[in-house]
């Protein structure tokens, strides 16, 4: 009966057979066909962007409609409101946001932005 060392020597004379040369071609072709195409990735990004823009436009329209339904009075557009617009960016969206808050807030919350002393009200652009 061969010893462990003899078995190891015999095994050492061999090694597992290599893959066939044809396998490389077959596997690489299949792998390339399965790999995600960059164009599809960009299309996915474009679709998400388009969805975001559509949603943004839709919410703008809703905000404008809500404001027009609820309405707000000129006296609510105080210098403090103007300051808040300046604080949050001083652009159209900031102005819209404050206008929305004015239009949708109840009377008690007006006091938060209304000055204690009556003063001239600003114009909403």
């Amino acid at each position, binding site marked *: *009966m*061969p*010893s*462990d060392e003899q*078995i*190891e020597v*015999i*095994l*050492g*004379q*061999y*090694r*597992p*057979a*290599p*893959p*066939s040369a044809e*396998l*490389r071609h*077959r*596997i*690489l072709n*299949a*792998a*390339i066909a*399965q*790999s*995600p195409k*960059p164009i599809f990735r960009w299309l996915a990004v474009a679709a998400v962007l388009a969805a975001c823009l559509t949603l943004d436009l839709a919410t703008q329209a809703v905000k404008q409609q809500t404001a027009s339904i609820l309405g707000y009075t000129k006296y609510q557009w105080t210098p403090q409101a103007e300051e808040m617009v300046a604080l949050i960016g001083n652009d159209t969206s900031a102005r819209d946001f404050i206008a929305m808050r004015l239009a949708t807030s109840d009377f008690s919350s007006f006091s938060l932005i209304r000055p204690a002393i009556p003063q001239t009200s600003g114009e909403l652009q």
Partner: protein
Amino acid sequence: MRQTVAEIYDAHADQLYRYALMLLANHAAAEDALHQVFIKLAQRDSDSPKIAAEGPYLKTAIRNECYRMLQQHKRRKQHTHPDAARALLEQVEPANECPDKREELENALAKLPPEQREVVHLKIFEELTFREIAELLDIEQNTIASRYRYALDKLRHHLAGRL
């Protein structure tokens, strides 16, 4: 992408295939396992092949695939049989080729459980130490040594009087 997968194939496929062949003891099954590993690799993000180019990652991937296939065969009560047409082993020095001896060795190896064949492969053919095998397979070093011991015992009994 094509370049990268091809480069990974050229660098690692040979070793991975030999590993799969020793685990599955069947050329067609080893080809399927290698195929699956490269398909999964290609389906991942474009940055992944760079990470996957690391040998241990691919070795774990092919090992997992082989054991998955072995489990599948077990569930279906199928057995992988060594190929009659294609030899599982090749002689390191082909000048001393002795087909009978090789066939005896192949039969003896094919009779071992895959876990023992795996350890024999990593120890003898890849020349790893028990510690390296234990780290690679995430198994206790003593377990690896036991598997190797059992494998050699079985091979010795099978080959007694035949070589």
